[in-house]
């Protein structure tokens, strides 16, 4: 831990005496032998601001993102840091917990820009907060990587500093609809239940479009409020509408409850698609056998196989390193946390500088081969360069069913 890490803490103590600062400085020097042995103390670190929802409703996702950042940082720092021209500079990430409150995320982004004077930033979690905080990075001209912003509305402000590694929501709905059309030709009726929240709702609407485009009839489309404790009424209506394909969007707590209540009401369908939760092991643990045959799509999965020119070398190696550090399989949120790190690193290394204008230009050029997939951004900064995999939980395990190159099985019909 360096003194810089302590700076936000010190400034947060009202009336901190000089003595206390001196003691903290002494302690931090004593606690920093690790960084000294690595031999990069001579170079100033590259500082990245990262507001995260470490407490509050989004804390599971916040913690996952942080794990992704940390794995990248530790991996790179172990080799001396990011190569900027001829020198290696270590990475330092300045974290703040915005307690799952978007306005607070914006305040903290402002603090990171003005008070901590970070070189670059990572966006807060989710489309809504990323969009809100992107205004701050734009104002101060700080190139900012968004790990979890998929809704195209995030990128519609003409900002030059925002780059997101998630492809747009329709890249999740389109392949899924194709598969349904091909493998379940009898499926005609679609029911969609979407959380009334920027990303899940936008995703629900994409599924509606993708269904209609293929001549499927959307027999039910409703939104449910954030913090809903009961979905029985909506699901009773869905049951009455006799859909063949049921789509539910939201976050893991919503999906656990909806899946459970579907079973409570004896709802059966040929296909049940839920996004985001099934990509997380917790969903499978919490729903048990009910998880079987639920399909989902996600931007990354441990089953993908990309060779890369980044700090990790390939998707397989990334998975291995993550498992070694955290004793668990990485999911897409962990991976996207690391992905923004490697993209930023590659941009700095290619630019040969931490000059924000040069890094921004290099980011905009794209062409980064990462373990997360090949990453290039469109004119508004959203990734457009890879195909997110579709998968299905089969006998308690996620099996990739699309794209063909990494497929581990076929779509199984019937969810009960």
């Amino acid at each position, binding site marked *: 831990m360096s003194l810089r890490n302590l700076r936000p803490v010190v400034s947060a103590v009202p009336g901190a005496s000089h003595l206390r600062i001196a003691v903290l400085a002494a302690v931090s020097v004593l606690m920093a032998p690790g960084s000294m042995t690595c031999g990069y103390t001579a170079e100033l670190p590259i500082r990245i601001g990262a507001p995260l929802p470490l407490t509050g409703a989004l804390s599971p996702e916040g913690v996952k993102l942080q794990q992704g950042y940390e794995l990248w940082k530790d991996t790179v720092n172990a080799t001396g840091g990011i190569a900027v021209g001829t020198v290696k500079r270590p990475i330092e990430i300045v974290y703040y917990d915005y307690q799952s409150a978007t306005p607070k995320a914006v305040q903290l982004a402002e603090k990171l820009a003005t008070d901590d004077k970070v070189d670059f930033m990572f966006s807060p979690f989710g489309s809504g907060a990323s969009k809100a905080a992107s205004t701050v990075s734009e104002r101060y001209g700080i190139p900012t990587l968004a790990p979890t912003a998929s809704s195209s509305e995030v990128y519609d402000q003409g900002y030059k500093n925002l780059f997101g590694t998630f492809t747009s929501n329709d890249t999740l709905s389109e392949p899924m609809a194709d598969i349904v059309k091909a493998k379940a030709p009898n499926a005609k009726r679609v029911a969609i239940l979407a959380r009334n929240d920027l990303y899940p709702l936008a995703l629900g609407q994409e599924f509606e479009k993708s269904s209609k485009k293929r001549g499927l009839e959307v027999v039910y489309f409703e939104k449910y409020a954030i913090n809903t404790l009961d979905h029985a009424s909506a699901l009773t209506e869905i049951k009455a509408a006799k859909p063949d394909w049921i789509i539910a969007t939201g976050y893991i707590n919503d999906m656990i409850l909806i899946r459970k209540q579907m079973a409570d*009401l004896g709802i059966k369908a040929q296909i049940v698609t839920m996004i985001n939760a099934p990509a997380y092991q917790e969903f499978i643990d919490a729903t048990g056998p009910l998880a079987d045959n639920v399909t989902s799509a996600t931007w990354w999965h441990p089953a993908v196989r990309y060779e890369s020119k980044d700090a990790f070398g390939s998707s397989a190696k990334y998975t291995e390193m993550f498992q070694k550090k955290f004793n668990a399989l990485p999911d897409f949120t962990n991976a996207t946390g690391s992905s923004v790190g490697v993209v930023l690193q590659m941009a700095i290394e290619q630019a040969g500088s931490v000059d924000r204008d040069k890094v921004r230009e290099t980011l905009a050029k794209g062409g980064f081969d990462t373990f997360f997939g090949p990453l290039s951004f469109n004119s508004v900064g959203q990734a457009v360069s890879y195909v997110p995999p579709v998968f299905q939980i089969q006998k308690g395990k996620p099996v990739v069913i699309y794209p063909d190159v990494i497929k581990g099985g076929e779509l199984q019909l019937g969810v009960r």
Partner: protein
Amino acid sequence: MLYLQILINGILLGGLYACIAVGFSLVWGVLNVINILHGSFIVLGAYLAFFAYTGLGVHPYLFAPIAALPLFILGYAVQLVVINKVIEAPVLVTMTATFGLTLLLDNLMLVAFQANFRKVSLSPPLGIIDLSDTFPALDLIVPVDRLASMLFALLFVGLLYLLLRRTAVGRAIVAVRMDRYAATLMGVNTEKVFAVTFALGAALAGAAGALLSPIFPISPLAGTAYLGKAFVICVLGGLGSVSGALVGGLVLGILESFGALFFGPEHSLTLSFTVLILFLLVRPNGIMGKRGFV
């Protein structure tokens, strides 16, 4: 048939809501303390049940009375050490004190249990009762775990009712609820009654948590949602009475279910809070009014 199914859903949900609210109502009614900790106590009970089930294989329904015990002790301690010091202060002070304790408990749970969502997934699952199997004309479904949770909740509420009516401690609680100064004059040790009541409220929350653990996802920060429901239920049903919590819970459950049907699921929460405001304006004592505790 759709309406009948929605009514069944509403009644089952209402039963769960009553189970969430009854301890909160008891504490608010007797101590005049708005116990913000209540939601977190429920979550703690749910975690205990989760670990008892996954670790020891104890069924949550059997575990509910066991979960009540540590929560009773915790509640007693909290009341003795913190609440009693500020019990004479205006209601805002006790509310703030319990709010502070909630932040503490929630974050301790966050550290201890991590932020992952979990759920007791009963194996084998209790399944559903499909009424059309016996009566082909009735295409209605009753989920057994919700029904069982509701019945167990009613059992606990019934036990509370008996405790308040038939035991010396219970009668002391009711006496303090009606007029604490008169009760003191009659020789009731109000401090002790307060501590026991608060502990009972916590115990009911713990039992409720265990009963809800197979139904709702468990996370360290789920308490706020339960607390919000408990508030509305108390205002709807009438504060500080067992029957009020029951009626309030059922009314809210049915209201939300039909609200979601008629106005769309995104408005069911809005509807319940609109009704809350209407009740505060028109009938602030709730459906059951404000009489003696039972």
